[in-house]
C-alpha cells in the first residue's frame, strides 16, 4: 500500500517507541501535522520551539528514552538551535524533526527557508536532509540508533514538504542499522584492563569521579559495588549527581568550581583518579597545570575523543561504562583505605556541617534554606530540574539526590531558560513522579511562556523561583572580579504570583524562612501546578568558589558564616 512520507514518518516514530512529541506547527511541517491525527501520538503544543527541544531533552534525561521535538522550517528550526546545542554538550539523546521547503525551492531563499542541516552541523551528533518519501523510514531508524547508541546526542531530520506529501510503497525492515563509519561499540584490549585493575588495587588514596555516563549506561549498582568493595570515596560532577547515593558514607559531594572544599583538596592529594563517564570539564578541573599532580588517572568513557583532551590520562578505557565496570569488578580487591578516608574527614573538619536547618532565623531568607527545605519536605524523592546560575549550584549543594536521573540540569552549555520546559518534559516521561523546576528570576523569564503549556496540558509541575532581583551568578562575578560594578544585572521583575494567575495557575510568594516549608507543602498538596516565588537575599553568593583559572584547592571561602555554623 502506498503511504505518504508524512504517514511513514509517524509510523516509523511509533516503531521506535515514540508516544509523546513536543512541537509547534508551521507551513513546511503541515503535512506531517495533518497525518499525525491518524496516529496514537500525544502532541504537546509548546509556546516556542526552544521549549520543545528542552522538553524533549528533559523527557530523555528523566525517562531514559529518546526525546522528540518537531518544528517547521526557517524560524521554527532556528529556534531549536539552543536546545540542540544543550543536548549535544550534555550527551542527551534527542531527535529533532523539522519541515523544510519543497525540494525544488531549496536554495532559492524561499519563504521560511533556512539551511538547518548546515546551521546545526556542529551541534548535532548527526543530521539528515530527507527529500524523498522512500528515505523517511530508514532515516528515522538511523536517527534513533545514532541518537541513543554510543555517546548519546541530538540528531536532526530535516524533511522537505514534498517528501512529506508524496507517496511511495513502504516495506518495513526490521534488520539492524548498518552504518559503516559509525562505531558506537568500541572496547579496550585485555592488557589495558589489567593495567587499570592493578592500578586500582595498588592505590592508597583513590577517588572515583562519578559522571553523567553512570546514568547514561545505567551503571549505578556497579559503581556502588566497586566503591564499597575497595572503600573508595566518590566525588560527583554536576551531571553525575544522583549516580551515587548522596547519603552514602562514601559520597564526598560535588567537585569543581562550586564543589565542596574537602572534595577539591582530596583530589589534589589523591594518588589515583577513577574517572567514570566524565570529561574533565574546565568547571571541574580548575587550572590544568596544577590539577591533581599526584594522581594517576584511569579514564573510562564511551567516547575515545575525550581521552587526553584536557587531562593526560595514564589508562584510557574505551567502552560502555557499565560493561567495562562489570569486567573490572570481579578483579577489584577488597580494601580498607581507612587512613585515606580519615585524612579526608580531617580535611572536612567542621566545614562539613550542613545542618543549616537548625540555624537561628536571622530574618533573612536565603536560597540555601529554600533548597534544603525543599529537599526535606520532598524527602529527596522529587525530580528537580534546575536552570543555570546560583540557584543551580545551591541545588547541587543542598538538595541531596539519592537516585539517578533525579537532578536534571544544563551542565555543559549552561542554558538559561532550560528548567521550566525541561521540567515539563520530565513530567511527561515520569507522570507519577513529583517534579519541581528550580529556577532563578532571570532564567525563568527566558522561557516563562511555557507556563501556558503547563496550563493547556494540565500537568502538575511545581516551580520554585529563587528571586533575588539580579542575574545572580553574573552579579557574583561582578562582585568578586569586577569591583562590584553591576553592569546590566539588576532585574525589574513582574509580579510572578499575578503572572501565574494570568495563566490560570496558582502563585504564592514566600518572603520569610518560616514560610518555606508551609509554602512547599501547600504547593505539593495543590492539585494543579503552583508557582512559588521565594524572595531571597539579594546579594548572596555561592561558596566555596574556585575562581576561573585558579588551582582547584585555591577556593574563595565563605567570608562570614551566614547560613552555616562553620566557615565554608
Amino acid at each position, binding site marked *: 500500500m502506498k503511504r505518504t512520507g508524512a504517514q511513514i514518518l509517524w509510523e516509523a516514530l511509533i516503531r521506535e517507541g515514540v508516544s509523546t512529541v513536543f512541537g509547534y506547527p508551521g507551513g513546511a511541517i503541515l503535512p506531517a501535522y495533518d497525518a499525525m491525527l491518524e496516529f496514537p501520538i500525544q502532541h504537546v503544543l509548546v509556546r516556542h520551539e526552544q521549549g520543545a527541544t528542552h522538553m524533549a531533552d528533559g523527557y530523555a534525561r528523566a525517562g531514559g528514552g529518546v526525546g522528540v521535538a518537531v518544528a517547521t522550517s526557517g524560524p521554527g528550526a532556528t529556534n531549536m538551535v539552543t536546545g540542540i546545542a544543550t543536548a549535544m554538550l550534555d550527551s542527551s539523546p534527542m531527535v529533532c524533526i523539522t519541515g523544510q521547503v519543497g525540494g525544488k525551492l531549496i536554495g532559492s531563499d524561499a519563504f521560511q527557508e533556512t539551511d538547518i542541516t548546515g546551521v546545526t*552541523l556542529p551541534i548535532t*551528533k548527526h543530521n539528515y536532509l530527507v527529500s524523498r518519501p522512500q528515505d523517511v523510514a530508514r532515516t528515522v531508524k538511523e536517527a534513533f540508533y545514532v541518537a541513543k547508541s554510543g555517546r548519546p546526542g541530538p540528531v536532526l531530520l530535516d524533511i522537505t514538504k514534498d517528501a512529506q506529501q508524496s507517496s511511495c510503497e513502504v516495506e518495513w525492515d526490521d534488520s539492524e542499522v548498518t552504518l559503516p*563509519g559509525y562505531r558506537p561499540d*568500541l572496547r*579496550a*584490549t585485555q592488557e589495558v584492563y589489567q593495567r587499570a585493575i592493578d592500578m586500582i588495587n595498588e592505590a592508597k588514596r583513590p577517588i572515583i569521579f562519578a559522571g553523567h555516563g553512570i546514568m547514561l549506561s545505567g551503571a549505578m549498582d556497579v559503581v556502588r559495588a566497586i566503591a564499597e568493595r575497595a572503600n573508595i570515596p566518590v566525588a560527583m560532577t554536576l551531571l553525575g549527581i544522583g549516580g551515587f547515593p548522596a547519603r552514602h558514607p562514601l559520597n564526598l559531594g560535588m567537585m569543581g568550581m562550586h564543589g565542596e572544599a574537602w572534595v577539591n583538596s582530596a583530589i589534589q592529594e589523591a594518588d589515583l583518579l577513577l574517572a567514570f563517564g566524565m570529561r574533565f570539564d574546565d568547571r571541574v578541573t580548575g587550572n590544568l597545570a596544577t590539577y591533581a599532580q599526584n594522581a594517576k588517572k584511569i579514564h573510562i568513557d564511551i567516547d575515545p*575523543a575525550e581521552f*587526553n583532551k584536557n587531562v593526560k590520562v595514564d589508562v*584510557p578505557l*574505551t567502552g560502555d561504562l557499565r560493561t567495562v565496570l562489570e569486567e573490572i569488578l570481579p578483579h577489584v580487591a577488597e580494601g580498607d583505605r581507612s587512613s585515606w578516608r580519615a585524612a579526608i574527614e580531617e580535611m572536612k573538619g567542621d566545614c562539613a556541617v550542613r545542618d543549616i536547618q537548625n540555624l537561628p532565623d536571622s530574618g533573612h531568607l536565603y536560597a540555601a534554606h529554600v533548597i534544603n527545605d525543599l529537599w526535606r519536605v520532598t524527602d529527596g524523592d522529587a525530580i528537580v530540574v534546575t536552570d543555570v546560575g546560583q540557584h543551580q549550584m545551591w541545588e547541587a549543594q543542598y538538595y541531596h539526590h539519592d537516585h539517578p536521573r533525579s537532578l536534571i540540569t544544563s551542565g555543559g552549555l549552561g542554558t538559561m531558560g532550560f528548567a521550566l520546559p525541561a521540567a515539563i518534559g520530565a513530567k511527561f516521561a515520569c507522570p507519577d513522579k513529583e517534579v519541581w523546576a528550580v529556577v532563578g528570576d532571570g532564567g525563568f523569564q527566558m522561557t516563562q511562556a511555557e507556563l501556558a503549556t503547563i496550563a493547556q496540558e494540565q500537568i502538575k509541575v511545581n516551580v520554585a523561583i529563587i528571586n533575588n532581583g539580579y542575574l545572580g551568578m553574573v552579579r557574583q562575578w561582578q562582585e568578586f572580579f569586577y569591583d562590584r560594578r553591576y553592569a546590566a544585572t539588576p532585574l525589574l521583575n513582574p509580579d510572578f504570583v499575578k503572572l501565574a494567575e494570568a495563566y490560570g495557575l496558582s502563585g504564592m510568594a514566600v518572603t520569610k524562612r518560616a514560610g518555606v516549608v508551609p509554602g512547599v507543602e501547600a504547593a505539593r498538596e495543590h492539585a494543579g501546578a503552583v508557582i512559588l516565588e521565594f524572595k531571597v537575599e539579594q546579594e548572596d553568593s555561592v561558596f566555596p568558589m574556585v575562581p576561573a583559572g585558579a588551582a582547584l584547592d585555591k577556593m574563595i571561602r565563605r567570608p562570614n558564616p551566614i547560613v552555616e555554623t562553620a566557615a565554608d
Partner: protein
Amino acid sequence: MRHTFAVHVEDTPGVLNRVASLFRRRAFNIESLTVGHTETAGVSRMTIVADTDDHGALRLEANLYKLVNVLRVDDITVRPSVQRDLAMIKVAATPETRTHVMQLVDVFRARVIDVAPDSVIIEATGPEDKIDGLVEVLRQYGVIEMVRTGCVAMARGPKIGGLGDGVERGTQVADDAPADDSNVSYSV
C-alpha cells in the same frame, strides 16, 4: 609540525562540509585538502594536511572518527609515504626566454602543455618542495598564473618501493603500523 591525514569517507552530500567544519570547530587550520574517488564505489578519499602537534593530530583523528560518514582515518605523517602535488604554472616566455624556460622544465622533469606567443603553461608533479623549487626559479621570467592541487598522499606498500623516475626509496613497514605509542585506539 605538518600532519597528513588520509581520510576515507562515504561519498554523500555534505560530507566535505562536515569534515571541514570539524577542523574549523576544533580550531585547527587546514593547509591543504584534496578529495576524489577511490578504488571503491561510494567511497571518497581526502588528503588533509594540517599544521598541529602530535597531541592535536590524535585529537583530530579521534574527532574525525566521530563523524558518522567517516570510514577510516590514517595519519600517514609518521609512515613511509609518497606525497605528490600537481601544479600548472603559466609563465611569461618570449621567443628569447622560451629556451631557458624549457631547459628548467627539463631539469625539473616537468612538461610544457600549452604554448602561446608570450607564455607557456607548465605542468609539474612531485613533492611540494620540488614544485616550490620550480616556481622559485621560474619567478624571474614572470609567473602569470598558478594553480596547485594541494598534497595527495599514500602510504607505501609493505614491499621495497622504487618505481623508477623520481621515486624515493622506501623502507619496509608493517601494515597498519601504529601511529604513536599511546594506548588510545580510536578505530577498534
